């Protein structure tokens, strides 16, 4: 019995050792992958975050065929909704510089492959003049007003001299309902009356001509405790509007909630990967919030909803200037009605 158990465990041990030994000993030699025999293509989407009207959606379109089979004749992108005037397909093929020096290493190098692209309705075409069998072109879709709140699809197509045609579909991509404005300059006692409808700061004289469109007043009171840079509704309690001589008729009350740590990438902070999207505005509830936001700091912000419930917005503080009593603000705005 003793011999039997010893033999049994010895066999088990040998079996396990063999399994480990053999499984770790296989060696695969690397070989360069074989390219396809025909014209091929591929696409990646380069831009991130919500797709906003007025901004670009960027793609990289790669196409290639074996050199002996011929060359590429043209490349085309067709969008389901025609892009804006700034839509284009680059006439340069990019590769990454392999140099090790700090200046060139890793940078994109463009090689011209044809004339600049032409837009024909929803199609954008580049005709190749360079004899090449491989290229990667970038496509920039200028999101038009007609696409707001809709979905957009793209069909990338390339044709080669051997008569082959390949296509690649991308999307659909949702285009956001919201608007965005960057780098609004607010100045205490000057351009300090903010209209969410117009996404603009007005002076007191200008505000007096449109009192029902002024939602907030920007002011800086560095001498007061916990006040600093602030956005206050014209209809707020007077203690939150110290030394402010409001133009006649301004009375709107905008509910708002101050926010720290929400640094939207599109509103001016490329180092953070945070994006405010339509859904954030749809779910926003500031009904029990005050109608002012005091002591705003750089990279802080405030969620808000206009008194008439037409707009919700997020105001981001890009920069503050205590000495000049100024601030630079950016805004994403969502129309509810």
């Amino acid at each position, binding site marked *: *019995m003793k011999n*039997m*158990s010893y033999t*049994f465990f010895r066999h088990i041990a040998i079996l396990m050792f063999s399994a480990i030994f053999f499984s770790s000993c296989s060696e695969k030699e690397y070989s360069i992958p074989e390219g396809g025999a025909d014209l091929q293509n591929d696409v990646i989407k380069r831009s991130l975050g919500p797709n906003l009207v007025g901004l670009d959606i960027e793609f990289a379109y790669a196409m290639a065929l074996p050199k002996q089979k011929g060359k590429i004749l043209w490349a085309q992108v067709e969008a389901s909704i025609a892009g804006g005037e700034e839509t284009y397909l680059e006439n340069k093929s990019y590769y990454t510089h392999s140099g090790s020096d700090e200046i060139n290493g890793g940078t994109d190098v463009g090689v011209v492959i044809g004339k600049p692209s032409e837009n024909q309705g929803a199609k954008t075409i580049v005709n190749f003049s360079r004899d090449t069998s491989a290229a990667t072109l970038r496509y920039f879709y200028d999101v038009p007003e007609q696409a707001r709140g809709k979905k957009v699809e793209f069909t990338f197509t390339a044709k080669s001299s051997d008569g082959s045609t390949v296509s690649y579909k991308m999307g659909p991509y949702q285009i956001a309902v919201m608007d965005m404005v960057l780098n609004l300059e607010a100045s205490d006692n000057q351009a300090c009356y903010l209209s969410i409808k117009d996404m603009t700061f007005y002076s007191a004289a200008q505000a007096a001509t449109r009192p029902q469109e002024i939602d907030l007043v920007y002011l800086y009171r560095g001498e*007061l*405790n*916990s*006040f600093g840079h*602030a956005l206050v509704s014209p209809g707020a309690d007077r*203690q*939150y509007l*110290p030394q402010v001589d409001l133009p006649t008729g301004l009375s709107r009350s905008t509910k708002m*909630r*101050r*926010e*720290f*740590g929400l640094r939207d990438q599109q509103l001016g902070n490329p180092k953070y990967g945070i994006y405010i999207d339509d859904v954030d505005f749809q779910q926003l509830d500031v009904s*029990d*919030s*005050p109608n*002012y936001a*005091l*002591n705003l700091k750089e990279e*802080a912000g405030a969620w808000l909803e206009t008194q008439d419930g037409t707009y919700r917005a997020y105001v981001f503080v890009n920069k503050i200037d205590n000495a000049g009593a100024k601030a630079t603000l950016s805004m994403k705005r969502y129309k509810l009605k």
Partner: protein
Amino acid sequence: MKRYTIQFLCMLLSMAILPGCSKDLPMDEDGLLITDRAECYVSNFELLGADFITVRTSNAVIDTMACTIDVEVQFGTDLKNLYPQFSLASDAKLDPKIVGKVDFSDLQNPKVYTVISGNRKVRKPYTVVISIQNP
């Protein structure tokens, strides 16, 4: 072989039995252990705004004899949307529980939170008195 099998089975049996031998400790209605500790006090108090940033202008003054917490908040603080945070004596708990934002806007009727000791025999009601900083 038989001896190895018996040893292995004994080991398994021991593993199953031993953890179940510990003595049952009493638990309260919240599923928290009731211990022997009679300490009952607030050791620290924090008050965060809706943006999760403190709204205090200085440290809260905690009087464990009078059972009061005096805290001054910044001018303009949104008193309807605050998150209080209590640090308590070991094993103590708070009643009512804090499950979200709390409305402290009624300054005439300050909020009262009761600290209950680890043995659940001592209860001390603490009153949170808020004052607002002058601008």
